[in-house]
């Protein structure tokens, strides 16, 4: 019986260790959040995904930033005192840096406070343009800043080390420590959005040079938080930056924000929390269970759990309400669609085929089946929340089976005329190999087959699919585009004739009138004139059908009762400095639940 006793003691010990419930420390405000994937590191110019952007922008800052509460999305000064002065020709932007902004403490500064100066801005922008950094984000300045493209070309293949000061850029000037002058190649109001993007965040030259390849692990910025610890593939911990200059919580928002308590902290110095922890949950179940257990302060609702939170009418279920959970709904500034590769002779030469496919697509059914109705049907290429979105617009190529059949008959005749019997009329949709994409694509294929179209599906790894699109090797691809910035230009550039594959125009759509209008609209400020141009571009889009439109996704998140000031921002995901946590309430709520 001796072994039984030993085993019992061992089991009790193990359970005691595992069930040792941690008491909530209310002495500091800690916010816990979940990322779905590992980040790309802490170098601003290398960040391309949402999670990396979120992490980098806790530490680094940009000249401009987005208003937290206002919709439609609007810019406001970040590291600069006020919005820039713009010259009469619309090509010169003059920025004045705020005084008293310092980088976080780091050994590289040898114990001295290191103030942000205009030269840091010039250095950061030149670094983004330097081909040796291999940044995927240079496109934000490409063809925009006078002399910067030439700087990039000069540096390509040049012997290293290089001092950027030896290669001055005419369009980037720092007349004094607080003034930055940016001269553009042509008037382009969109440049301001670039200055709020993560890749244009300001870094200190001596930090980059000191840490070299390890700079990616040593972020030293001016932002509200400093990196405390990064356990790869596990969690990232930030602490409040004691040197932070302290931007203030906004005093204005949408009309509903005051009622929702979102203006209660107006004018208070940011940030509110002492520690920010990003947990990495690759799978959704652990993320969701951790949220329900109170280990996360807010979370998106996984598709599988949606019915547990909301009833059929879309109201939050009673048990969730009892927990004090609050839901928050945002229409994404995105578009899910399929690209018709117009360089493919079968698809490209047959407008009737593209129309037939589009008209046979049942978007409402897919939204219900695959998105719990958390998506709205896309009627045009511009999503809601962006200037130019037309709420009254109907997709002329939307679901209409009768018209689809007519178009398909015309498509068959045209195909016969183009190819005779040599090439069968067959369409292949290509998608990535994650199960959700595959299932959705299979449902689309079923729609196309309803017409009698010989359609099939090919599945590729994410990397291979991207490769095929860049090389223009497929006929149709499943795709989604999330706005880099809230402007119609960001969606229309996907159809610009000068950006065909391997550029972002994977439809290889080329239309002279569309291109002419694109060149015109991208340099226009928002207003009635620009709206007319945008409407005409949308008309051309519908006439030519380069994409099979699907939907704009709605993301629903739930937050714990102790989380304050919570309103997600779809363009700038680094809104944690505005959030607050009532630790007393958290401790009380969780002790009741446990």
């Amino acid at each position, binding site marked *: 019986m001796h072994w039984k006793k030993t085993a019992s003691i061992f089991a009790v010990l193990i*359970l005691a260790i595992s069930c040792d419930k941690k008491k909530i420390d209310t002495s500091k405000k800690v916010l816990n959040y979940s990322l779905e994937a590992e980040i790309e590191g802490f170098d601003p110019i290398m960040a391309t995904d949402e999670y990396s952007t979120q992490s980098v922008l806790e530490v680094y800052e940009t000249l401009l930033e987005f208003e937290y509460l206002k919709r439609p999305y609007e810019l406001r000064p970040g590291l600069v005192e006020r919005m820039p002065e713009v010259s009469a020709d619309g090509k010169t932007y003059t920025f004045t840096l705020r005084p008293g902004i310092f980088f976080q403490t780091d050994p590289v500064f040898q114990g001295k406070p290191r103030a942000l100066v205009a030269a840091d801005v010039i250095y950061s922008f030149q670094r983004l343009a330097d081909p040796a950094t291999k940044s995927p984000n240079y*496109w934000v300045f490409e063809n925009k800043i006078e002399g910067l493209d030439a700087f990039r070309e000069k540096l390509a293949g040049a012997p290293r080390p290089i001092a950027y000061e030896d290669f001055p850029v005419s369009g980037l000037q720092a007349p004094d420590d607080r003034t930055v002058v940016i001269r553009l190649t042509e008037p382009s109001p969109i440049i301001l959005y670039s200055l709020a993007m993560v890749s244009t965040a300001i870094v200190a030259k001596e930090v980059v040079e000191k840490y070299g390849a390890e700079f990616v692990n040593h972020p030293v910025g001016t932002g509200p938080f400093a990196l405390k610890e990064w*356990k*790869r593939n*596990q969690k990232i911990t930030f602490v409040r930056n004691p040197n932070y200059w302290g931007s203030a919580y906004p005093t204005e928002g949408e009309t509903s924000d005051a009622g929702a308590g979102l203006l209660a902290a107006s004018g208070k110095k940011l940030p509110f929390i002492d520690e920010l922890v990003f947990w990495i949950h690759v799978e959704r179940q652990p993320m969701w269970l951790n949220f329900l257990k109170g280990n996360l302060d807010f979370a998106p609702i996984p598709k599988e759990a949606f019915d547990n939170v909301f009833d059929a009418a879309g109201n939050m279920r009673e048990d969730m309400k009892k927990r004090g959970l609050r839901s928050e709904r945002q229409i994404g500034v995105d578009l899910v669609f399929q690209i018709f590769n117009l360089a493919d002779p079968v698809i490209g030469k047959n407008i009737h085929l593209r129309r037939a496919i589009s008209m046979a697509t049942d978007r409402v059914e897919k939204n219900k089946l695959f998105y719990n109705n958390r998506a709205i049907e896309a009627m045009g290429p511009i999503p809601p929340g962006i200037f130019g979105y037309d709420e009254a617009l109907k997709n002329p190529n939307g679901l209409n089976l009768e018209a689809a059949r007519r178009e398909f008959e015309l498509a068959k005749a045209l195909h016969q005329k183009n190819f005779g019997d040599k090439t069968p009329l067959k369409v292949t949709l290509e998608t990535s190999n994650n199960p959700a994409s595959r299932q959705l694509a299979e449902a689309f294929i079923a729609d196309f087959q309803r017409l009698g179209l010989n359609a099939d599906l090919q599945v590729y*790894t994410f*990397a*291979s699919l991207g490769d095929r699109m860049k090389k223009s090797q497929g006929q149709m691809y499943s795709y989604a585009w999330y706005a880099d910035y809230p402007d119609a230009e960001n969606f229309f550039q996907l159809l610009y004739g000068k950006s065909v594959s391997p550029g972002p125009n994977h439809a290889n759509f080329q239309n002279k009138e569309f291109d002419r209008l694109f060149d015109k609209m991208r340099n226009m400020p928002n207003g009635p004139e620009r709206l007319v141009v945008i409407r005409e571009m949308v008309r051309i889009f519908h006439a030519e059908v380069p994409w099979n439109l699907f939907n704009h996704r709605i993301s629903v998140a739930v937050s714990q009762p102790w989380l304050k000031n919570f309103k997600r921002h779809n363009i700038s995901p680094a809104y944690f400095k505005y959030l607050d946590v009532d630790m007393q309430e958290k401790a009380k709520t969780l002790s009741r639940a446990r």
Partner: protein
Amino acid sequence: MIRYLLRRILHAIPVVFGVALITFILFHLVGGDPVNMLMGKHASAADLDLVRAEYGLDRPLWQQFLHYLRQICTLDFDRSFRTKQSIGSLLRNGVFASLCLAVPPFLISSILAIVMGMLSAFYRNRFVDRALVMLSIVGLSVSSLAIILFGQYFLAYRLNWFEISGFESTFPEMIPYLLLPWIIWVLISIGADVRFFRTVFLEEMNKDYVRTAYAKGASTPRVLFIHVLRNGLLPIITRLVINIPFLLMGSLLLENFFGIPGLGNLTVNAFHYADWPVVKAVTFLSSLLYIAGHIASDFLYALADPRLRDSVGP
């Protein structure tokens, strides 16, 4: 024996070369262009060419392969294209977490399976045997994903017995996070092992030496755990040692669901993002592990069976 081991290690060199060649060819055929992945959706043709040249990916394939071989020889795989982390640190962290996750349940499940397999064989066709066989079949039939989802939901979330997910790299702080994955690992793996070991021991128990041992008055535990176990060691060693490489690479689901930063996740992400330096490093590491596993099993064979030791020479 040492010469034998050296010979086996020398034989491994062409195997590593072959694995490197196959990996290289396969990656270039179906892996996707790493530069496309690296440069993202906005990259122009000029940008892609520039970066391809920076990484030497515009060179002829044979030159790129030679570079790969040089990396294998120097064990310097540079940095991940995607995360810019040094491959050495990625592998070190991943190996540690994977071993923490895998080794304890591997040892526990192996010992349990051997004991259960032996009991099952000893009590053949009786209640104990039938119960163990039935439990093994249940364990084999239920998908590992279902066991993970169930365990995480009921044991960790509903009953609050374990942490839902997470990892700590220090002892004993890691135990609360690893207990549930360990239990699930044992549940997932034990069924197949019990069935296998039962068959091995059944075969042994019908042999003459068992009857002789009993006839000489040896007790049942002595017959089972000295005679039968010793004679059944070879297939047991084969099965256990062949599983060793999977301890590092084969626990992707558990890693993902329990937030354990091991090698499985690193490997899958590397293929997903066409992160060529990481792909090269993990395929090299896994081929090394396989080869090491085979050499270890040969070595253990020789230890377990003097006839084999004699046949391999001094």
